[in-house]
C-alpha cells in the first residue's frame, strides 16, 4: 500500500464505514480511522456482528485495533438510507425527462387515465 497512483490503497477508505472479515471468521463493522503498510486497521464505533441463518445480532465493541495478518477482507458499507434516497430521486428524474404527461381524473362513477 503506497502512494503510487493506480495501486491498491486504503487511503480513500478512511473515515468510511467498513466491514472486515477476520481469519477466525468474525465480522466487525465500524468506521475505519487508521491504516498502515501491513493492513493493520483502527476501527471506531466497532460492532461485532454475529449471524445465525438470516438473522444477526450486534455487540458494541468500541475501538478496535486489528493486526493486518488477521484481515481477510475489508469492504465498504454503503448506507442503505442513501440508496433509498438515490432510488427515489432517480424515479423522479425519469418522470421529469419523459414527455408523457399523465393526468388521472377521479370521478365518483369512474376513473379515467388521460395521456397527452
Amino acid at each position, binding site marked *: *500500500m*503506497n502512494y503510487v497512483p493506480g495501486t491498491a490503497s486504503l487511503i480513500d477508505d478512511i473515515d468510511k464505514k467498513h466491514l472486515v472479515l477476520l481469519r477466525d471468521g468474525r465480522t466487525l463493522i465500524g468506521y475505519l480511522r487508521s491504516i498502515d503498510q501491513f493492513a493493520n486497521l483502527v476501527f471506531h464505533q466497532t460492532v461485532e456482528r454475529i449471524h445465525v441463518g438470516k438473522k444477526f445480532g450486534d455487540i458494541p465493541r468500541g475501538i478496535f485495533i486489528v493486526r493486518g495478518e488477521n484481515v481477510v477482507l475489508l469492504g465498504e458499507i454503503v448506507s442503505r438510507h442513501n440508496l433509498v434516497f438515490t432510488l427515489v430521486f432517480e424515479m423522479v428524474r425519469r418522470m421529469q425527462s419523459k414527455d408523457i404527461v399523465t393526468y388521472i381524473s377521479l370521478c365518483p362513477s369512474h376513473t379515467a387515465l388521460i395521456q397527452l
Partner: protein
Amino acid sequence: MCFCSDVVVELKNDLSICGTLHSVDQYLNIKLTDISVTDPEKYPHMLSVKNCFIRGSVVRYVQLPADEVDTQLLQDAARKEAMQQKQ
C-alpha cells in the same frame, strides 16, 4: 455457479468473490469493485458491500478470463524478468 465479467478471487477460507479488478499492489493485495459472492450465498453479511479490499496473504487463486490474457506476451515478459533476476 456464477461467473464474472472480470475476475474471481478464491480465498484460503474457501470464499470465492466475483468482481471487477480495480487495483493491485506490491503485496498482491487486491481491490475489487461491484463484487458478488459466487456459489451458495453462505455469507449473508456481504450483501451491502459493493467494493472490497482483499489482503494478498489470504488469496489462494485469482481466476482470470482466458481470452483477456495474452499468454505469448506474458511468457516473453516473464522470461525477460527471469533473465534480469539472474544478472
